């Protein structure tokens, strides 16, 4: 399931909604990405997330489908927020559920690596001296590459 929203999410409630009444699940992995503060000389005041409505949902659905093809998963949830966020706020939640833990661990990691390099979101950081768009990291591309080796 995919949710793209401005509102915050409650991790416990989301996991419960995904798994309630299920007896076929043996492992649940959650990953939460949050807004990090800046450095002492360049503190972060806020972060604004822009996205491409329509393509965001279709890319996240494509990533979810890819994970379901690679691993036997009992459930997948991706929530990504947009709009203005403050340090400490939630940005993204990935929940994977499987019968055994390895599929859930691997799929959650894969989903985040794919999301980071494919989902059309852009972060703009505002500090005391103004705002800057965050540059993409080559380490994110490297993280993605490891999934194409096998």
């Amino acid at each position: 399931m995919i949710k793209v929203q401005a509102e915050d999410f409650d991790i416990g409630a989301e996991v419960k909604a995904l798994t309630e009444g299920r007896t076929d699940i043996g492992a649940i992995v959650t990953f939460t990405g949050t807004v990090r503060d800046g450095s002492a000389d360049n503190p972060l005041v806020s972060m604004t997330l822009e996205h491409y409505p329509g393509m965001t949902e279709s890319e996240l659905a494509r990533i979810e489908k890819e994970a379901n093809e690679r691993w036997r998963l009992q459930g997948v949830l991706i929530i990504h927020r947009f709009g203005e966020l403050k340090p400490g706020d939630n940005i993204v939640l990935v929940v994977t559920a499987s019968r055994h833990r390895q599929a859930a661990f691997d799929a959650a990691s894969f989903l985040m690596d794919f999301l980071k390099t494919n989902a059309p979101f852009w972060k703009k950081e505002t500090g005391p001296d103004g705002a800057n768009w965050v540059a993409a990291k080559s380490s994110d591309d490297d993280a993605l590459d490891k999934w194409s080796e096998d």
Partner: protein
Amino acid sequence: MSVKFLYFAWLREQTGIAEEEVALPDDISTVGDLIKWQRARGPEFESAFGQDDVIRVAIDQSHASPETMLAGAREIAFFPPVTGG
């Protein structure tokens, strides 16, 4: 051919455009051609689209590469490398 162009993040800010309808010349066949054509549309386009290693393009909401053909595109989006998550 009339196509909807969308711009995101600093490409939107530098061009001053979020969305526009553009009549594309027939001799533009690939994404690479299109980026070159965008560069010639004015000083703000020249500076924004001059940095072609950080320009990404999506055609009808799917990621494209410089070799991707534009034929039949209805919506073309321009944006920097994504930074979500």
